[in-house]
């Protein structure tokens, strides 16, 4: 029991504390592509602290408006407890990747509800876009996880990583990589909060703490998906296999995970910086293509290759 609490504490601190740093690195990298100096890497921390201290203007008394950011933040936080960061997931006894899927979906739904609760036309438009994206992207995420689950005969994240290469896993890995872009709203697909089209969509009426929670949960999502990708498909290096004390191995694993997340997110940021935003129908078509690709992966998984 005490063991579990330690794990929960470590996971929460890691996700909550490290994710703004990742965002900072991404912003810095984007600045490199833009040939400028860019903000310091700790900038997102400052942004969040500043937003938390700002006045919270409420456009309506709707309880949904107040709850949406909290639901979004906490659902991502709970989802993080089902993901392994190099050690086995904190709540592995309580649920598996299906639970992770539910909580991640809940966070997107919270964004949409928050957008609808603002009663601003931009918010409504943003919410409808968010839901459309959700319907398109979530099945693909589920499918990739199912492919991995079939190969491992389990949906527990600790059981998932397989060392053997297989076609279905490769296809699923590509599918997940492509869908991360959609899930964390990076550029070809940031139609939800398109700043120039619909003025940040669902977040238009949020100020201060509410906005901070939304932003923070997006940073956390980035970290979660990057971790998910590395830990499910390329679970290397695993220091627990080496002869060393367990605690040190775990710490090394976490450090390796963080570095890997940075690498993946920089790759995603590169795609982000060299693409214009797609229209919603174009992005749905893209999701359709990925969906069928991953379906092929599923078929491969059934026939056992």
């Amino acid at each position, binding site marked *: 029991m005490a063991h579990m609490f330690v794990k929960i504490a470590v996971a929460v601190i890691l996700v909550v504390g490290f994710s703004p740093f990742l965002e900072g690195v991404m912003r810095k990298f984007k600045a490199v592509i833009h040939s400028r100096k860019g903000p310091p890497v700790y900038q997102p921390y400052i942004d969040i602290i500043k937003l938390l201290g700002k006045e919270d203007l409420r456009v309506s008394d709707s309880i949904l408006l107040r709850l949406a950011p909290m639901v979004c933040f906490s659902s991502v936080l709970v989802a993080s407890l089902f993901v392994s960061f190099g050690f086995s997931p904190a709540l592995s006894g309580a649920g598996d990747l299906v639970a992770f899927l539910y909580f991640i979906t809940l966070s997107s739904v919270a964004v949409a509800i928050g957008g609808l609760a603002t009663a601003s*036309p931009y918010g409504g438009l943003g919410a409808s876009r968010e839901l459309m994206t959700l319907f398109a992207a979530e099945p693909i995420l589920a499918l990739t996880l199912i492919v991995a689950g079939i190969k491992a005969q389990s949906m527990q994240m600790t059981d998932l990583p397989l060392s053997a290469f297989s076609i279905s896993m490769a296809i699923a890995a590509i599918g997940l990589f492509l869908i991360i872009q959609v899930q964390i709203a990076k550029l070809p697909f*940031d139609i939800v909060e398109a700043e120039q*089209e619909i003025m940040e969509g669902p977040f238009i009426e949020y100020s201060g703490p509410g906005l901070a929670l939304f932003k923070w949960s997006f940073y956390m999502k980035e970290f979660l998906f990057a971790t998910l990708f590395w830990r499910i498909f390329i679970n290397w290096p695993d220091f627990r296999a080496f002869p060393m004390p367990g605690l040190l191995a775990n710490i090394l694993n976490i450090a390796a995970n963080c570095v890997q997340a940075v690498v993946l997110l920089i790759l995603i940021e590169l795609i982000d910086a060299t*693409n214009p*935003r797609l*229209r919603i129908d174009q992005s749905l078509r893209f999701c359709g293509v990925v969906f069928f690709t991953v379906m092929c992966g599923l078929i491969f998984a059934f026939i056992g290759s």
Partner: protein
Amino acid sequence: MESVEEAAGIRAPRRARYIRTILLELERIHSHLLWLGIAGHIIGFDTVLMQSWRMREPVMWAAEKITGNRKTYGQNLIGGVRRDIEKELIPELFPMLDTLEQQWKKVLDAIAGDTTLKARLEGVGILPADKARDLCVVGPTVRGSDIPIDSRVDHPYAAYDELVPRVITFTGCDNWARVLVRMHETFESIRLIREGLKNLPDGPILTQVEETPPPGREGMIVVEAPRGEAIHYVITGSDYRPYRWRVRAPTYQQLQALPSMIQHATVADVPITLGSMDPCFSCTERLEVIDVKTHKVKVYSNEEILNISRRKYGRG
């Protein structure tokens, strides 16, 4: 300024007209680079914004060196220009133009094969040639619809009778064609500046204006601004002041074409289509509806427009 000159019957010296042409073309280059950046920003492609504004910055510095300010040049006077382009400045300008041309070629080369960019721009905001002609659209917007209208060629002013630009048209009629028109016009402007600097004639830059023009004289000039043709009309008055000065900015005509351009488009396409005609909302600030049947003119105020659109979308 030239409309006043026309009214007063003055013609600026040749050197002054060349300097005006060079500055107008510098302005066009910077405006087109700026526009590409803004268009990129509208469709979320911030890298285009950053890079094209990076290339634009030396142009601004050049303008600052020539005139003393980055934007409000304050260069034209009635009868000539205020400052000469100094001899030691000219060798500095050529390398600037060379690097700009090189980089701009690379950009054109790179985005020509960019499928995601084309997916957003091609076939969006279509303005067919006959429709464009009906709506009197001007500038790069109409040249993207394959109608060669350019007041620099049609009604030469400044030194455009000697430095003749090539009118660039594209047949696409869509946003992509308008991007290409602007990008190719930039090369044309670079060429014109080079020629202008090489053939810069000697002589005075200002003719002395001996007497004030009598009141009641009219003058009109059509200027091809980067956005399209701007018309300045002046009636001279007494006491050194104009009696009436009317400017028709190109955005007036461009906006008429917008409803047909955004028909059946999604919300995501509206900003870029609007942006593709490079609107200047500082130049246009009210909506005037003319009822064709009764010939009544009604100027809508802001609240009325808001109410109409709310009624239409079932809000408020």
